[in-house]
């Protein structure tokens, strides 16, 4: 069995440093918890160990010997196996095949040994058979399984490597109580066998139920490692927030805007894929923040309200009127606007001139078909200059602009005809600091003019600085609402990790 040590690992993507100084000391026979807020670098650290990211500096040692991990295959050869948060399963293959991939048991070097394949699968399925639920079997195809069942397959696939060092990156995010308990039983057995296990979770109770030691990462640096038995949730969150941060934000969160007007958007009991029973109200003049760790349902809620994804249950009232929204077109006609951080997918019309990129919503809302370019330019000019957009001419293709300016074009498109509600889905992804400042100034002034704004941001600092209220999401539902002086980083992490 093996010990794993990481010293001074560093990784930068262009100018952004994802990991500044990652240190980790993993011993055999322990479950080592890795914890840190959004973008703190814990995933990057995991990816370095699993071989999908190569560090710029630092070293990785196994049993005291420096090793170089050139890729996932090299990692496997060194005895490292990884549970991937986004899963590494082939959807059209069976459970049994996925468990044994990539090392399918062979017969005569050429054929798959079906008997052994099923034998291996049965060995791991058996452990979870009574908690896996309906339709889970060795020859079921992964595409037909539920999300929690797929996660179980990925767990089994990781276990089937029988590697001495196992890395679990959020293995329990979709599992139910009984599945988690069974998984922990298995982890305890592996621990007793002397395996070394890295465990990442966003549930504080799980961390304390299974962990032996915990390493906290903040802003790309390892802050420290402590024994779980000698620490408590509050002090872990203290470490994640940092002393200096605590002193500052505990003093005075930015004043919330005075809002007493009627609700412009109210959502009640909304459920769909990715979230359950979400209810909230946004008033005119208010910026409502969505917070928490990545992918806890924040984006899914916004996309469902805007009609991108279907909803299963719940009601949406806009300006007091009940609305059923089945497509983005309907949402736009109801007075909603949606701006995504994923400009490439949701925002920009690639290769087309700026003018065309600013005006599609204007066309839709006014049912226009033929327009003089001159009059369109006049209409486009005002929001573009309000946003301080830098561009050479309206006929310039939008791709010629920087990310920040592209995002301004996308925002400008909603400002020719003012919407009532602005849904912002992590809008500052990949744009520079100046553009961010401009953007938030604009959002605040739009709110002041009477728009209701929902802001999801994966950057906690942005959220704390700009939102009047914050709903913290955890596993697809709102775990806490932060208002007034409660809007501190400490409370945000506390709620995000569901610390008791």
């Amino acid at each position: 069995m093996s010990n794993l040590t990481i010293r001074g690992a560093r990784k930068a993507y262009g100018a952004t440093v994802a990991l500044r100084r990652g240190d980790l000391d993993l011993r055999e026979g322990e479950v080592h918890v890795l914890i840190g807020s959004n973008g703190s670098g814990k995933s990057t650290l995991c990816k370095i160990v699993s071989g999908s990211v190569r560090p710029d500096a630092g070293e990785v040692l196994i049993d005291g010997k420096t090793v170089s991990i050139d890729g996932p295959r090299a990692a496997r050869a060194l005895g490292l196996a990884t549970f991937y948060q986004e899963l590494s399963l082939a959807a059209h293959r069976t459970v049994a095949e996925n468990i044994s991939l990539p090392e399918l048991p062979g017969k005569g070097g050429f054929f798959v040994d079906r008997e052994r394949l099923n034998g291996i699968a049965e060995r791991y399925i058996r452990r979870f058979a009574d908690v896996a639920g309906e339709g889970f079997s060795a020859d079921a195809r992964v595409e037909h399984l539920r999300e929690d069942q797929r996660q179980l397959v990925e767990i089994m696939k990781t276990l089937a490597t029988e590697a001495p060092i196992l890395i679990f990156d959020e293995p329990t995010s979709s599992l139910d109580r009984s599945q988690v308990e069974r998984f922990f039983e298995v982890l305890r057995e592996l621990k007793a066998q002397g395996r070394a296990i890295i465990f990442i979770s966003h549930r504080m109770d799980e961390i304390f139920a299974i962990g032996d030691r915990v390493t906290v990462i903040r802003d790309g640096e390892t802050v420290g490692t402590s024994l779980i038995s000698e620490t408590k949730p509050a002090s872990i969150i203290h470490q994640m927030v940092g002393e200096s941060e605590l002193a500052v934000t505990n003093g005075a969160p930015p004043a919330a805007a005075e809002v007493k007007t009627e609700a412009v958007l109210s959502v009640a009991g909304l459920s769909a894929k990715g979230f359950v029973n979400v209810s909230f109200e946004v008033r005119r003049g208010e910026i409502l923040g969505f917070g928490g760790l990545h992918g806890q349902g924040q984006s899914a809620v916004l996309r469902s309200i805007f009609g991108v994804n279907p909803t299963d249950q719940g009601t949406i009232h806009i300006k007091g009127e009940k609305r059923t929204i089945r497509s983005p077109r309907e949402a736009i006609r109801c007075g909603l606007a949606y701006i995504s951080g994923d400009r490439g997918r949701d925002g920009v019309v690639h290769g087309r001139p700026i003018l065309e990129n600013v005006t599609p919503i204007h066309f839709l809302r006014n049912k226009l078909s033929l327009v003089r370019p001159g009059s369109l330019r006049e209409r486009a000019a005002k929001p573009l200059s309000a946003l301080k957009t830098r561009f050479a001419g309206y006929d310039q293709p939008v791709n010629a602009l920087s990310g920040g300016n592209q995002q301004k074009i996308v925002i400008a498109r909603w400002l020719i005809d003012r919407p009532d509600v602005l849904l912002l889905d992590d809008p500052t992804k990949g744009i520079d600091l100046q553009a961010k400042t401009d953007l938030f100034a604009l959002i605040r002034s739009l709110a002041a003019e009477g728009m209701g704004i929902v802001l999801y941001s994966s950057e906690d600092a942005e959220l704390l600085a700009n939102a009047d209220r914050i709903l913290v999401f955890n596993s697809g539902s709102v775990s806490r609402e932060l208002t007034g002086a409660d809007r501190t980083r400490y409370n945000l992490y506390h709620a995000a990790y569901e610390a008791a």
Partner: protein
Amino acid sequence: MSAIETGTSQRPGLAALVERFPFLPALVILLALLALNGWFQPNSLGFRAITGLISTYLALMMLSVAQTYVVYAGDVDLSVGAILSLVNCVIIVLMERWGGGGIAVLMACALGILTGLACGLLNGFVVAVLRLQAIVATFATSIFFTGIALYVLPVAGTPAPTIYWRTYGGRFFEIPFVFYVVAALAIVLVMATRARLTTQMLAVGDDAFKAFQGGLPVTAIRLKGYMLCGVFSALAALCITGDTASGDPLVGGAMTLYSVAAVVLGGTALSGGRGSVVGSVLGALIIGLISSLVFYVGTPSQWQNLVQGLAILLALMLGVMVTRRVQR
């Protein structure tokens, strides 16, 4: 293993069946076409006519199998027709130069298959190792291969040795030679579905990045897919040489997209990850039967292309509709 049975029985019977055997819709279309052929021309279901159909379309069957192996992994090969032409020219020239005896024919065939393998290796290198777009890269290599074919045999028409086409068109123990080839192909394909490489290729086709993260040697697997494709393209060339009994540097050009059509008709997803080689063989036969049906129905010659195109379109729609309905 009782759990296994409950797993499949949860899906409706037909859906589970089509999922297990994705070529079933193609098989139904094929049988319908056979019936239609028989209706318009009873002789077309006779032994002689079926033998003729198979000797003509065996090359396309092989070529469709070749295409399937790259489509499995989410790739495509637009050079299969050019590889076929090149191998056709290479073996014709070699057999002529070496005197056309039995040994010469076998040697030429072996070298032809090696040529196909080399072409596949080049395609795989360009697509999987250098990571160029499969469609564009293999389109470029197809022009390159055609260029070599024109160098090897500048003018069409050099005949194949008598022993070669007599064997291909002949009979052994009263059974036509092509039937043995079909039987051998069937055995190879059934064996291949059980191969580790097939499962690995399909896993890569599902999601190449996930497969890479999961530890599969993605580049090597795609490379092997292209090499297999090259070998089966060469086998297709051996068949077409037997059928036409001559060399032609441009013989395969039009067949490339037919092979893609046959793959899709057979129920294989062009996006990769799902499908069957058997389906592709059936797809090639469907294309063959459509051509003969158009002829038997008595379509005027100037309308034959139009009707044939519409019929292929119709078959595609039927297959896709059935598959989609079942997958819901």
